[in-house]
């Protein structure tokens, strides 16, 4: 009789090798194939003893949380897909509540994996409130294992070999992080049969979907912000404001951008995708002209992204909406700090100490601060108190970033209408970036 054991992220079969579809007969499999092995053995009727899963015993889980109609649909589709799959819902639409109800339905040991320590604390609070039992935490120096445990991606990866057979259900918050090669090991080394991925957007260009499908399951449900605006999320308006560069800025922009364009033309290069761009960047290591072209492009983009007319428009916009709680997003920390010094607005970047960040967000929540400047650190992973206006001074061409930033102002409250202003420098490559980030 075969015996299944778990050893350091692998399912080891003692006895006859197992022949799974498309694979050679093997005695050792990555842990994420556990459910396939079990299914195969059950189907073939061959006897086996399962010592692999040493699942933590879970107390009766009961919550009073209620699902909205679309959350119920999402849960239904996920359950129908053999409790494996990815749910795509916008920020503020209740992905956490959906996961809580899934945990209640499954009544099994669960590991929730999140990208930041702040989210570990937020998830713990929600789960404690929902089930009224102690919740474990991994990360930031904490190592408390409970039937319901929340972990950072880093900690889940570091402890995968040790904890990989304790949980039957694993929830990946911001599941797009799982496509990073080091994070994939989490999904590979845990044997959890039930898997749920949560994210606000899932773009094929940014996340290899076939990898996620293999490790977590297929996309089972998706709603965008427009589907929920007005009903479950606040009504919103996105205004794209095209602003001209000053004559001096335009001259310098053209000069620098032409250096870049001329280089591409001379070398017969075309940048059509991120891969093309990456290849161009690789050239800069061996070709001084390529390096010069890259520097020129970066300088041109700096001018376009941080133009003086944007700053002037921002000031005017804030002046005419002094009472609105506003988040101002940029791509560059340098601009964040320059504006913070110039307009005396609190700033949050990755350099901001945790204590100060919590203080700023607390004051923003209470209304003491009406405006926050930030780069990319508030795009995801931090619970930002409700704001009604956002200004994107500069951003990438990523649709995910755009949706996440938009989501920051969409938490519903009576009579609320949210505004997102996107400032774009006319006649520059930023116009195309703006188009790309709004493309579905």
């Amino acid at each position, binding site marked *: 009789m075969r015996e299944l054991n778990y050893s350091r992220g692998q399912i080891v079969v003692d006895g006859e090798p197992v022949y799974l579809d498309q694979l050679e007969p093997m005695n050792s499999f990555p842990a994420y194939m556990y459910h396939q092995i079990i299914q195969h053995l059950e189907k073939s009727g061959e006897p086996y003893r399962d010592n692999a899963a040493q699942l933590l015993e879970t107390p009766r889980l009961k919550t009073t949380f209620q699902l909205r109609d679309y959350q119920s649909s999402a849960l239904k589709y996920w359950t129908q897909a053999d409790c494996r799959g990815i749910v795509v819902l916008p920020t503020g639409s209740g992905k956490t509540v959906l996961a809580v109800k899934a945990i209640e339905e499954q009544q099994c040991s669960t590991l929730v994996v999140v990208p930041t320590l702040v989210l570990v604390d937020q998830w713990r609070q929600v789960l404690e409130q929902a089930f009224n039992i102690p919740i474990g935490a991994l990360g930031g120096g904490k190592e408390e294992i409970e039937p319901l445990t929340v972990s950072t991606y880093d900690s889940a990866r570091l402890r995968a070999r040790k904890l990989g057979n304790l949980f039957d259900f694993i929830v990946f918050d911001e599941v797009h992080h799982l496509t990073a090669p080091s994070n994939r090991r989490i999904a590979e080394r845990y044997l959890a049969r039930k898997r749920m991925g949560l994210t606000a957007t899932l773009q094929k260009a940014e996340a290899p979907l076939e990898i996620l499908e293999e490790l977590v399951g297929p996309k089972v449900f998706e709603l965008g912000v427009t589907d929920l605006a007005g009903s479950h999320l606040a009504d919103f308006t996105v205004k794209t404001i095209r602003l001209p560069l000053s004559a001096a800025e335009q001259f310098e922009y053209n000069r620098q951008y032409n250096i870049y364009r001329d280089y591409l033309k001379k070398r017969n290069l075309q940048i059509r995708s991120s891969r093309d761009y990456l290849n161009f960047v690789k050239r800069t290591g061996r070709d001084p002209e390529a390096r010069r072209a890259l520097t020129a492009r970066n300088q041109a983009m700096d001018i376009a992204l941080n133009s003086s007319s944007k700053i002037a428009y921002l000031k005017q916009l804030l002046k005419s909406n002094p009472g609105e709680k506003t988040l101002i997003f940029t791509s560059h920390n340098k601009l964040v700090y320059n504006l913070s010094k110039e307009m005396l607005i609190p700033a949050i970047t990755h350099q901001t100490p945790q204590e100060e960040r919590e203080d700023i967000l607390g004051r923003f929540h209470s209304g003491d*601060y009406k405006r926050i400047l930030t780069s990319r650190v508030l795009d995801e992973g931090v619970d930002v108190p409700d704001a009604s206006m956002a200004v994107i001074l500069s951003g990438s061409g990523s649709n995910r970033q755009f949706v996440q930033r938009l989501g920051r102002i969409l938490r519903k409250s009576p009579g609320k209408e949210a505004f997102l202003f996107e400032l774009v420098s006319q006649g520059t490559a930023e116009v195309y970036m703006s188009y790309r980030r709004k493309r579905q």
Partner: protein
Amino acid sequence: MNLPFEHIRMYRRQGVIKPVFIREPLGILDTLIAVFKDHREKKRGQLNEVVSDCEHLGYDFRMVRGIASVLESRSLFQSRSSIPPLDARRQVFTEAAASVVASKNERLRVLEAVAERNGLTVEMLEDNLYADLEDEQYLVDFNEPSNEELMRYYNYANMIALLAYSLRLEIRYSGSDEYLENLLKRIKTAEVSGTNRKKVVIELKPTRRLGQRASRIDEILSRVIALPEWRLKTNIKYPQRYKTVCTFEIDSGGDGKLLAVDRSDPETIIEIGLPKKKLYKYGDILVVDDLARRQGVTAAQILKEISEEGSKYIDLGGVLVSSKKHQEIEANLKTLNTLGEAQTYLRALGVGDFMAVLESFGYQIEWSKPRRNSKIYRL
């Protein structure tokens, strides 16, 4: 010291790899020395901008960046603030929150009010506002080298960075250095033979911890090249995904004359000047892989031994901490800002692989040069 790995300059031909050495004092060396000298009492942000501009002087940008790294290791940067910047910011932002500050006058009014309350001038307050940022630090001291010294320090740092990719080091030397011999005894994979003319062979495995590898090689070679006669032969796989292993040879009679160790690098001084800390059998904090490698056993054997001893450790994912140390470390790490501070703190506790400890406590690193000044933070 070693250069950041992205600034390595080398050439490779027919199975031979060589670092690109600077062979004569180039103008860029004088230029960068002058830039650093001129930026005494100026902010790091300004210095960085000028160094970036120097990349367009016609030299390979990696060489410019590499030389600047060497000079940064000879510089002392300091934050200056009259009141804690965090406190200054809180006061200013609270004062400004009542209305939108869009003009110079509105800004001045807010700053004047806060400055007066704290007994400062507006200029001092402005300077104070983000004084804790790296770009706002002042260059307070710069240990100026001659262009020839700088050339040799750069060549050495470039070579050490490349040697971090070594799979085998063969060192032959004559002369005696007790420290070096003790150092070699501690390396499990080192084979030492000969009496007057010694031969040392060190077999290495590819590693992702290149920084750690480079500092160990630096520790050895900094002693070797000070000896009257030496020869180094290595097998290098650079970059690691490159399929072919290349050889590199250097000796005291040839290109070895182009090298010198920068003794002002604080990391080097600490490594050589202090006697090696005697590790307790377990200590309050230990990195299992690190200890296993040093003892030449497997990680599983270490864990088994610990478990048999009955010691109670908290496992932070390969890093074991006694419960009494756990809270203390967490609290102390919160007060530290840079990688250098964390390194010094954790090394003092006997941790070799301090990066693993930082990672296990959830810290992330914003890399900058010199490496020691990289910011540590956790979200």
